[in-house]
């Protein structure tokens, strides 16, 4: 077996993830290479969910009985854990949403309904990039349509990086918000946050960072990023589905208007008018995803116990190995940086003329799970003139052996359609 420096003890880790023992197509052990779409869940997270439902389930806040106090403590405790995980200055800056998409829509809608100086309107501009996930494109297109603000974006270089050469024309005095991904889910590119934030600060624009592909894989320090908002999603970071996070700077959360209205987010309601609770509750309408927050807290504990630096080192080693091995496959073209530098563990590629659907299907017959399509980042496919890619993505439980299995599988695909 290939041994690379920096690898985690995946034998031990994999024992925590029941799904990785799954057998498909009769006798094929699954080779799960789709963690960028969603990660698998360790036993520890499932245990936390079960324990919550079996012992502590009640609606949160305002309950005076034991189980309700426990549920509230668990839910709010999860907020503490997430706040610590991202080094938030205050726990009250952590808003629980249903997924990263809701988090990003929340930012767009806050700004659409905000008063000056935050208000986005026809005099102002919104900046995104061409490598965004649809969830960081469509909310801004909607905001632009609804307010008349102009939507602008950074293009991409041929090797899959942001083209920041015209940064001063893209981010201008008119820019109210710059929203971009820290790590691309299709290209794998890690973006130069500092350069963009510096320019945004120069012109007084807010910065929103989509950290959906970063939070699971590296140390995420919202203070170091110097952004105003950071969004990510639980299911990609060994947490449950149905939970996302928006971190926002306290002053902004105080000033900006609420988005969804309902129970939990109010201070006092009469038929004539209502006042709103302080953040984060102002932005959490209705019964929150209680069990899912508790599960995310357990996920964060799990990741922290292993150590985000160690996870990053592991993934870097696997990615470096995967880049090298994939480039040995004839006709394989990596879409995105063809090195392991400044890139995450998602690797997209095309294989000659063979359509990704066929690649994915034939790999599946070998038990290898990769994602095919535009990966909710269709503008990237348009940019590189391809209909779709095949994407393999790695996580803390991925092994060099799985990279080898992928490469063997791709050889088989080539022979099959050759």
């Amino acid at each position, binding site marked *: 077996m290939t041994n690379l420096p920096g690898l985690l003890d995946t034998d031990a880790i994999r024992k925590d993830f029941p799904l990785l023992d799954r057998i498909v197509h009769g006798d094929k052990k699954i080779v799960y290479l789709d963690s960028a779409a969603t990660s698998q869940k360790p036993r520890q997270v499932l245990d936390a969910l079960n324990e919550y439902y079996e012992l502590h389930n009640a609606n949160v806040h305002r309950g005076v009985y034991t189980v309700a106090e426990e549920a509230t403590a668990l839910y709010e405790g999860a907020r503490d854990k997430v706040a610590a995980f991202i080094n938030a200055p205050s726990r009250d800056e952590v808003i629980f949403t249903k997924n990263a998409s809701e988090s990003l829509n929340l930012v767009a809608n806050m700004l659409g309904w905000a008063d000056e100086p935050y208000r986005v309107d026809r005099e102002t501009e919104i900046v995104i990039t061409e490598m965004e996930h649809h969830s960081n494109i469509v909310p801004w297109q909607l905001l632009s349509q609804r307010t008349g603000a102009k939507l602008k974006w950074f293009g991409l270089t041929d090797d899959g990086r942001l083209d920041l050469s015209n940064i001063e024309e893209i981010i201008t005095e008119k820019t109210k918000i710059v929203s971009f991904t820290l790590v691309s889910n299709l290209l794998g590119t890690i973006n130069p946050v500092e350069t963009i934030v510096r320019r945004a600060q120069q012109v007084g624009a807010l910065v929103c960072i989509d950290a959906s592909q970063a939070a699971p894989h590296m140390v995420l320090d919202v203070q170091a990023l110097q952004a105003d908002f950071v969004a990510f999603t639980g299911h990609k970071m060994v947490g449950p589905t149905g939970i996302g996070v928006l971190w926002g700077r306290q002053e902004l959360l105080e000033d900006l208007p609420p988005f969804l209205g309902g129970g939990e987010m109010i201070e006092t309601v009469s038929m004539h008018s209502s006042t709103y609770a302080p953040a984060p509750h102002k932005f959490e309408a209705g019964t929150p995803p209680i069990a899912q927050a508790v599960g995310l807290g357990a996920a964060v504990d799990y990741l922290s116990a292993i150590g985000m630096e160690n996870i990053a080192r592991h993934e870097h080693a696997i990615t470096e190995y995967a880049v090298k091995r994939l480039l040995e496959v004839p006709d394989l073209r990596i879409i995105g940086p063809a090195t392991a530098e400044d890139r995450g563990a998602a690797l997209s590629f095309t294989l000659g003329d063979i*359509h*990704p*659907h066929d690649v994915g*299907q034939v790999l599946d017959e070998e038990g290898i799970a990769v994602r*095919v*399509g*535009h990966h909710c980042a269709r503008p990237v*496919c348009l940019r590189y003139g391809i*209909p779709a890619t095949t994407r393999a993505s790695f996580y803390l439980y991925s092994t060099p052996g799985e990279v080898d299995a992928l490469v063997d599988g791709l050889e088989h695909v080539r022979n099959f*359609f050759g």
Partner: protein
Amino acid sequence: MYQEVILDHYKHPHGRGLRDGDAEVHHVNPTCGDEITLRVKYDGERVEDVSYEGQGCSISQASASVLNDLLVGKDLETARRIQETFLELMQSKGTIEPDDAMEEVLEDAVAFAGVSKFPARVKCALLSWMAWKDATAQALGESEKKEKSA
């Protein structure tokens, strides 16, 4: 699902290329980017030609090739019956095991029975068939409404 017949049609498509026609349509499968441009030519009620060009996976390519084989030369009623039978097979989620009667109608196309078990691929297999249905409606000047209620 990759029957020999399907791979053959994929590697050596029949009737590919755009030729003269009475109507042209362009259909896209937005989830995977499969595309087809398809033209039909009628001689009265007889399918004189179905020509096409496109890009996509083996299933969508092979399916267009099979369509060309099956429909060209048929009268409209027969062609429609074939189209409907293929649709029924593809929407069966793997529950239909094609019998002799079906095989008589669908010929090579019965090879797609296995594809119906894969929901993500059914749309690929149907792309050209839906395009043909649409193009035919246009060529014969039927209103969309009439077509829908048919």
